């Protein structure tokens, strides 16, 4: 069983539902929020290892979310976005996302990012 605790922020209901089920099948512990306000409320109260967040959110964006979380942000973060311009990737890196997945991505691409996250966490310890 993976020991990573994940927090997913995704406002598209079907996507978040099936991503959650997929990751639960792989024994990840996962919590889901559909907007930035919920994420800001819930993340600081619990210790998550990885934040997976959509960049386009109904009440802000994934970059603002990282900035607002400040020291409460999970140690590893993965951004998901429909736009993959160099500028978007740079912004993601600048606010602390280690990966920037461009939608639509394959489940394997997400798993590869999570494997990287596990390695990064191992090194951080």
């Amino acid at each position: 069983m993976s020991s990573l605790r994940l927090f997913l922020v995704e406002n598209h209901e079907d996507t978040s539902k099936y991503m959650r089920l997929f990751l639960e099948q792989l024994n990840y512990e996962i919590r889901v929020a559909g907007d930035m306000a919920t994420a800001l409320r819930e993340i600081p109260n619990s210790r998550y290892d990885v934040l997976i967040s959509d960049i386009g959110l109904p009440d802000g964006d994934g970059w603002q979310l990282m900035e607002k979380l400040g020291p409460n942000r999970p140690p590893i973060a993965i951004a998901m976005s429909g736009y993959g311009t160099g500028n978007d990737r740079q912004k993601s890196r600048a606010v602390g996302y280690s990966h920037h997945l461009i939608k639509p991505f394959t489940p394997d691409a997400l798993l590869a990012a999570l494997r990287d996250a596990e390695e990064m966490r191992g090194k951080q310890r």
Partner: protein
Amino acid sequence: MTTQIVDPCQLLEEIGFAAVTVKAINAEVVAYNKLFALLVEPPAGLESARWFVECVRTRIAAADEERWETCFTNRTSVQVQVSLSEINGEPLDFEMRTVARSNANDSSDTILCIFVPLNSPVLERFFDAYISKGSDLERRRIRDELHKGVSQQLLGAAFACKVLACRLATLNEKLGKEAADVGVLLNNTVIDLQNLMRS
């Protein structure tokens, strides 16, 4: 060898500009002003329709001035030669095909003048720019639609298929394999769409 004479008005109509008939519609004046702006520097602060007319007046050949003024007043059509030059100074010959006036009391915004360039690549450049702008807008619209709709649904479907394949595999190995194959197909579709959106 025969030389085919292309009617410039017909050409404009084929390209999509309803060029020759007079329509006192400000939007069209603006559209033609854009063409005109390719030729002369617009003076700052002058209202576009007025600038268009003022620029025309000063460039009509002296022999045609009286005819033009008469038609201008009577709201009739006229053809006169107008001497223009491009912004870069290159000379151009333009033919004024139609002049009309729909409001005798206000000449600043009721005149529609249509120019058809003779032996000039300016019109071609204008339409190239026009078409290119339209293509860019359409490309952006399709990309946005793909992002908001198809891409998001495909992402959900790809994960749903993985989940389903795993569940089916515990019940029936063959069905699980078939669902996994659908998952591979979806993955390939995702990759194709990614490539399409980036191209």
